[in-house]
């Protein structure tokens, strides 16, 4: 492992993103616009928007980074650049951490922009600190990245990779408590939700929103970090130096 390899990869990924202006515009603008849409939708029921506003700011990066990472890794595989990198003295962890760092930067920007629009213009409120929402947004982005990285190994085309969003991520978001509080789910669905990482990401965001106590918040955040590490390790096993 080397810091140079990690940072070189981070810089390279950021350069690639910077060249794709339209993608960047979409990453930074879509989330605030969706938040504004929800604000307008729940104009008659402000209590609903108060409950989901802050958690949504933290959830958008999860979705975006999942899709971007799936496609980026698939491109690395199909363009032969991954095969080249695997034949070079670059540790697999350097590649993964390089990507993680680049997407953390992107997530921090996206979370800050969405947070500024949400808290500043749309009247999103959280009893807890706004920076805690942004931090959780970054953690969510890394979770999305790690899951996308792992799942991209099972896609052989971009069409398949995009389908993994409704197949793997959407059910997790639906069950997380964002739509229906988890306590009101049927018992068996509640049990399923309890083993899904996005549930803990939502819980942490909901606790910040409600201004709940620290210990449970840290526990939820720790589960999210654990899920990121687990998905990254699983992702690393899908990077093979030798292929058939």
């Amino acid at each position, binding site marked *: 492992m080397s810091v140079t390899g990690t940072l070189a990869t981070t810089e390279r990924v950021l350069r690639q993103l910077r*060249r794709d202006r339209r993608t960047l515009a979409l990453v930074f603008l879509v989330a605030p616009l969706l938040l504004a849409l929800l604000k307008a939708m729940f104009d008659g029921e402000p209590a609903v928007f108060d409950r989901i506003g802050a958690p949504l700011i933290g959830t958008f990066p999860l979705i975006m980074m999942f899709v971007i990472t799936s496609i980026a890794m698939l491109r690395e595989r199909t363009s032969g650049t991954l095969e*080249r990198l695997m*034949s070079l003295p*670059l540790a697999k962890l350097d590649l993964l951490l390089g990507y993680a760092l680049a997407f953390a930067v992107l997530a921090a920007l996206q979370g800050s922009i969405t947070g500024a629009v949400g808290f500043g213009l749309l009247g999103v409120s959280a009893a807890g600190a706004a920076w805690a929402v942004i931090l959780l947004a970054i953690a969510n982005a890394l979770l999305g990245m790690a899951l996308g990285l792992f799942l991209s190994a099972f896609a052989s085309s971009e069409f398949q990779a995009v389908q993994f969003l409704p197949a793997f991520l959407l059910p997790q978001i639906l069950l997380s408590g964002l739509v229906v509080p988890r306590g009101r789910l049927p018992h068996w669905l509640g049990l399923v939700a309890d083993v899904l990482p996005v549930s803990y990401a939502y819980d942490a965001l909901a606790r910040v929103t409600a201004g709940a106590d620290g210990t449970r918040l840290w526990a939820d955040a720790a589960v999210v970090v654990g899920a990121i590490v687990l998905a990254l390790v699983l992702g690393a096993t899908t990077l093979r130096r*030798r292929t*058939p």
Partner: protein
Amino acid sequence: MDGARATIEVRDLVVRRGGRLVLPGISLSVGTGRVTGLLGPSGSGKTTLLRAIVGVQVVESGDLRVLGEPAGTPALRERVAYVTQSPSVYRDLTVAENLRYFARVVGAPAERIEEAAGVVGLGSQLRQVAGTLSGGELGRASLAAALLARPALLVLDEPTVGVDPILRRDLWQTFHRLAAAGATLVVSSHVMDEAARCDEILLMRGGRVIAAGTPHELLRRTGTAQLEDAFVALAEET
């Protein structure tokens, strides 16, 4: 060939790809500081053999030593460079950005970037986005990335496809210059007229080496004037 001086030693290598027995037990050796041409029709197992030498191919059995170590050993990643047949560079980055990234990964100093681009004739296109290069230029950008580390062994899969005759001549001069400086090069091609430019030729057919030697030796052995005819004669012998 002098065994102690061989950079690559392959003994009874068996490789299966997609259920097909591509290399049914190939043996060969490649001398140090020479340009060895791997010639043969497409489907003869050239790419599979090159992938095995570089250590990215899952092999079934056999012995394969590169620079004295088993192929694919981590330490070899710093001494062996591989250029795949389809260019493997980031198309959304410029040539310079691609080379800067690969230079940092292999720990090569920044001065080598311009040098490597110059060698492949892309010195004036460093700031061009790779995706806008022509097919031949893209292949050369991929080759430049492999030159950055100054590898002891350079493995090139069909590096001159889509390259015009003048540049092709220049590239072959570069290959020989690198070999003269001590590097070993293995270059695959299915074009027989390139065989004449190699120090040593390995003729492959059906996953086996059917003949090995200098171009001159192969012509003399078959009593032919053209390597194309020599290949036909050798193929009919087997």
